[in-house]
């Protein structure tokens, strides 16, 4: 059997950053991203192929310590990853499914854990005319260097036989 779940890239912010982009994603079936993030805005933007059009939608549910809720957003200009503005880091486990095909829109599943705030799960659809994802960017919502030092992002490639 072919071994997979291969590390593609790892990044640790040595200083505060305004954006972090991964390109050269390799040839896998899915990408799993494990991101431990802190940002003064409490979230960071996540975009594929630098697409800033209104091509992202999401449905999510979360529990905040007192209740469970669900909501959704259509026609957004980015996806979002959790990023604590407190003393902790928010853990995001992100599965980008079948990212290399040019025949379907792309579905992404996110598990998000902020030990000081909430726990949640998200499903995203990226509706740009079907194309392979060739870059993934984490971007400060303000464009300033608000992604905090110590934030880490690791990409793994999972290749089907």
């Amino acid at each position, binding site marked *: *059997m*072919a*071994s*997979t*779940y*291969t*590390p593609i890239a790892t990044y640790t912010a040595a200083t505060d950053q305004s954006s972090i982009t991964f390109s050269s994603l390799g040839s896998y*079936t*899915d990408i799993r991203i494990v991101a431990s993030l802190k940002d003064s805005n409490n979230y960071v933007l996540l975009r594929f192929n630098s697409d800033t059009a209104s091509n992202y*939608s*999401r*449905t*999510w*549910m*979360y*529990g905040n310590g007192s209740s*469970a*809720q*669900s*909501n*959704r957003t*259509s*026609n957004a200009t980015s996806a979002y990853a959790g990023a604590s503005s407190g003393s902790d880091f928010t853990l995001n486990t992100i*599965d980008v*499914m*079948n990212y290399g*095909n040019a*025949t*379907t*829109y792309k*579905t*992404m*599943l996110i*598990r998000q854990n902020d030990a000081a705030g909430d726990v949640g*799960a*998200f*499903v*995203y*659809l990226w*509706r740009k005319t*079907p194309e392979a994802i060739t870059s993934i960017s984490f971007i400060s919502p303000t464009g300033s260097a608000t992604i905090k030092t110590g934030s880490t992002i690791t990409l793994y490639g*999972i*290749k*089907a*036989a």
Partner: protein
Amino acid sequence: MIQLGILASQISGHLASPTSYESIATVTVGAGGSSTITFSSIPSTYKHLQIRGIARTNRTQVQDALRVRFNSDSGSNYAHHYLLGDGSSASAGANTSITGILIDGIVGDTGGSNAYGGLVMDILDYSNTNKYKTLRSLSGREDNTQGAIWFESGLWQNSNAVSTVTIIPNGGTLFNQYSQFALYGVKG
């Protein structure tokens, strides 16, 4: 003397070497669709199985589910619990004595074009003959007008080792073209 391997296990409890996760088999649905996805002759040499995929069916609704069966058992030997976020509220529910474990979050034929549900399911300790088998999954669908995200768990009330996994649409009759299911083995 400190045994470094044991010490490391105590720290993380979840170490994985680069060779501990292997691709076993993949099915990509071609033109005309497919009524059944079957992974058979699954080696018993792994600790856990994981199935990752995207799926859309021919059900004439915006949503569908899939049904997972083990060892071709179509009896009422399965149970299922779920936690659902449908975009407006969170809810939970369960089914008992059903004929397969339900995995929701699949796009039906009237869902947005080119949209496919995504799923990652784990079949835990699948070859252990001393316990019933448990499956857990995270799945979801989105099409820019509606969506749903699901946590689900399922039980197969049988202690046989799982050697075959069969996946069928729950409401539809076919998986649409480009649906894909990939089976992986995770070593212990």
